[in-house]
């Protein structure tokens, strides 16, 4: 018995000795894993910028408004109204009263100042604060420009704010070239127009004497490729945005050519050309005018789009019987099909980020704008309407702009944009009817 008692005692002693060890073993920092959050606009406060001289008073307010519109327009931010402010910002250099901004749940705070030189140059500087962290996000920045370019400076401020908070590039300081449409549907007059991404500063690049189609920006945004019927048949033209000068690109045999698009280096152009009733893809050196055949099939190949690295081309072909999407090497060669869903796919556009391909899809009598991975997986339709087509990517690959046409004889075309998540679908304001948008890269 004594032996058993001793054993039991020893066992209990060992247990009592080990128990606290177990407890202490758990004594490290408490660990929790958070896998689900919320997706909601980030509340951000953008008080009117501080005018550092009287001449800049009006501009200070206007610039702040453009910054707010840019940020809120992304759907990722929500403005904290000025009426909720507790402490006004009267000095750009004064310390921020974080508590006052916390109280109104402003998670981001943008302060800025505007000054105007006697020579008319505008200087804009801003700072971005993470209110709840109680610190500044990045360093303050300053932009300088002409008074006429005040909107661009505001866009640059918004781009910087957007980039610092989201971690990806902005797209506000960019432009869109599109086909402006006026007149009734049976006598529609079309001309090329260019505007800021938000619809401001519209300018017309061509007159409405001839039908124009499918303008496409060069990688630097200084030139535009488009298709014109001014000679009676579709021809490809390249237009210099600054001088509005243009020239026709020569095609082999003077055949009809359309659907051009720049390569990432700005020197190479891919396009479709019809030869003897068959349409194939060609590539052209824009400087030499030498073309190279990329496909040779009895089917229709069109709507080519380079990958950002220039190594591949995604295009549309009906070689399988219905229009589908294919990818082939930039120099031509065997193509592999990437679209396998129900319906007809067209107008593929490679994302500037390189990870997605946007497309138009017609299925069951409706049109969709969708995105898929470059291997055709994870197809996701973002829109659905009577007629959606012609997607184009924002410079940061986050937003897609496209044409939406309404039904009926009175149907009109207009531009819409949608986030690649499918959220924040909204109409882009244009001076007139609009179609076939192409988004420029960020301006320098």
């Amino acid at each position: 018995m004594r032996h058993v008692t001793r054993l039991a005692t020893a066992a209990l002693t060992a247990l009592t000795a080990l128990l606290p060890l177990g407890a202490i073993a758990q004594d490290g920092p408490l660990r929790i894993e958070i896998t689900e959050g919320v997706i909601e606009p980030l509340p951000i406060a953008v008080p009117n910028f501080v005018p550092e001289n009287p001449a800049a008073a009006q501009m200070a307010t206007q610039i702040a408004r453009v910054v707010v519109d840019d940020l809120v327009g992304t759907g990722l931010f929500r403005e904290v109204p000025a009426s909720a402010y507790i402490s006004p910002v009267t000095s750009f250099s004064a310390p921020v009263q974080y508590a006052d901004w916390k109280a109104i749940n402003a998670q981001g705070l943008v302060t800025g100042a505007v000054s105007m030189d006697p020579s008319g140059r505008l200087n804009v500087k801003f700072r971005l604060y993470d209110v709840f962290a109680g610190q500044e996000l990045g360093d303050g920045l300053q932009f300088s420009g002409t008074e006429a370019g005040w909107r661009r400076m505001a866009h640059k401020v918004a781009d910087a704010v957007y980039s610092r908070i989201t971690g990806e590039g902005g797209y506000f300081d960019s432009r869109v070239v599109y086909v402006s449409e006026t007149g009734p549907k049976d006598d529609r007059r079309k001309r090329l127009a260019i505007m800021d991404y938000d619809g401001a500063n519209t300018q017309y690049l061509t007159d409405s004497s001839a039908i124009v189609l499918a303008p496409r920006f060069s990688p630097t945004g200084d030139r535009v490729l488009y298709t014109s019927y001014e000679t009676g048949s579709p021809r490809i033209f390249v237009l210099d945005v600054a001088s509005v000068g243009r020239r026709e690109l020569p095609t082999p045999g003077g055949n009809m050519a359309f659907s051009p698009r720049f390569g990432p280096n700005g020197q190479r152009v891919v396009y479709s050309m019809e030869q003897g009733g068959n349409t194939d893809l060609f590539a052209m050196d824009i400087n030499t005018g030498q073309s190279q055949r990329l496909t040779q099939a009895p089917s229709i190949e069109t709507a080519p789009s380079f990958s950002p690295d220039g190594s591949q081309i995604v295009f549309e072909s009906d070689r399988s019987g219905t229009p589908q999407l294919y990818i082939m090497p930039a120099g031509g060669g065997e193509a592999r099909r990437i679209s396998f869903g129900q319906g007809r796919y067209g107008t593929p556009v490679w994302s500037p980020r390189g990870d997605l391909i946007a497309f138009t899809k017609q299925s069951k009598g409706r049109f969709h704008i969708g995105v898929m991975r470059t291997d055709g997986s994870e197809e996701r339709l973002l829109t659905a309407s009577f007629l959606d087509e012609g997607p184009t990517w924002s410079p940061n690959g986050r937003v897609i702009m496209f044409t939406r046409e309404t039904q009926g004889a009175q149907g009109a075309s207009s531009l819409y944009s949608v986030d690649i998540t499918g959220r924040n679908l909204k109409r882009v304001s244009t001076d007139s009817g609009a179609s076939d948008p192409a988004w420029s890269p960020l301006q320098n």
Partner: protein
Amino acid sequence: MHAGHVISASGHALLIGWMLFGSFSIPPEPSVEVTSVALVSNEEYAALLAAQEPPGAATDVEAPEVPETPDVGAPEVSATQDSQPEQTEPEVAEAVEQDPVPDQPAPTPPAPEEVADEAPVIEQPTQDIAALPPEPRLEPEPAPRDVPRVAPQPVERPDPDVKVDEQVQQPAEQADNAEEQREEQEATAPEEATTEIVTEAEQPKPLAPTVSKRPKARPVVQQAAVEPQPEPKPEPKPAAEPKPAAETKPEQPAAPPKQDDSDAVAAALEKALGGGETPSESPAPSGPPLTSGEKDALRVAVSSCWNTGSLSSDALRVTVEVAVSMQEDGRPNGNTIRLVSSSGGSDAAARQAFEAARRAIIRCGANGYDLPREKYGQWRDIVMTFNPEKMRIK
């Protein structure tokens, strides 16, 4: 003799059977007899009572009911006579059952022997006797309205009698209970008030730390238990190590050696320091570990502020581990939030992910997380892993 007995017995049986079944076959006529019964008002009624008394004598209990009925019925009888024909019809159905009883006593004179044999049968009449009394009531209750009431009641009498007794008792009890319930309702009202107060009480948190001193005392007790064990001593150090980097370095270097010497000394130092400012070291875990529910509550609280809507798709591929030191009132110490590690993306993307996580921790902890104060030692240092896999933009 034997055959004679058989013949006589069978003859009597046939006779009795004819009397019985013949009487049952007659019932259609009782309706006519009923009318005759109605004519019997006073004398025959008394005679019937006298004749029924013998069987009624077997059950003296119900006898008192009989006197009750005549008291009520006697005066009413005169008035009931006019309405009797109407009463007869509803009675017919019941009279069919009741009639054989009065019929039996009539033939009984030849069958007194059977009475002894049918002694158990007499028990049935006793049950019917309960129905018999209604007959006098039927007569005394002339009102046509009362008739339908009378008809169902006789069968149900035992129930109402019982119910009456219970009802008399229960209402008194219910009244008492009702009063008590009202008091309970009054108690519920203050609870609502307290909930409101709690929400308002979130702000006056400086009061809370004073209360939270209690958990400090507990670790002392546990430390005493830990003292005999030399092994636990090294482990509390790692718990303290992450803190020095973030919070207060001076306290830590002083404390660790003290713990090595004796935990009790460290506990005493903690008492002296108060620990309210920066919980530098808890030599041993104070209180039991957080329950899964408490952890979930914290996780949900942080999740509700973790806004990934403004993160880039790159940042949404980064899983970040964020360390934070908590104050005793449940609020995170904003200066201690730091990125422990990240995986899945560039440094820039990790920075965005970390900033979003930091915003979540600070914002939802601005009013203090709902954590058990007695377990402060368990959640003073927290490492939160933010895994955006489910939030990712594909």
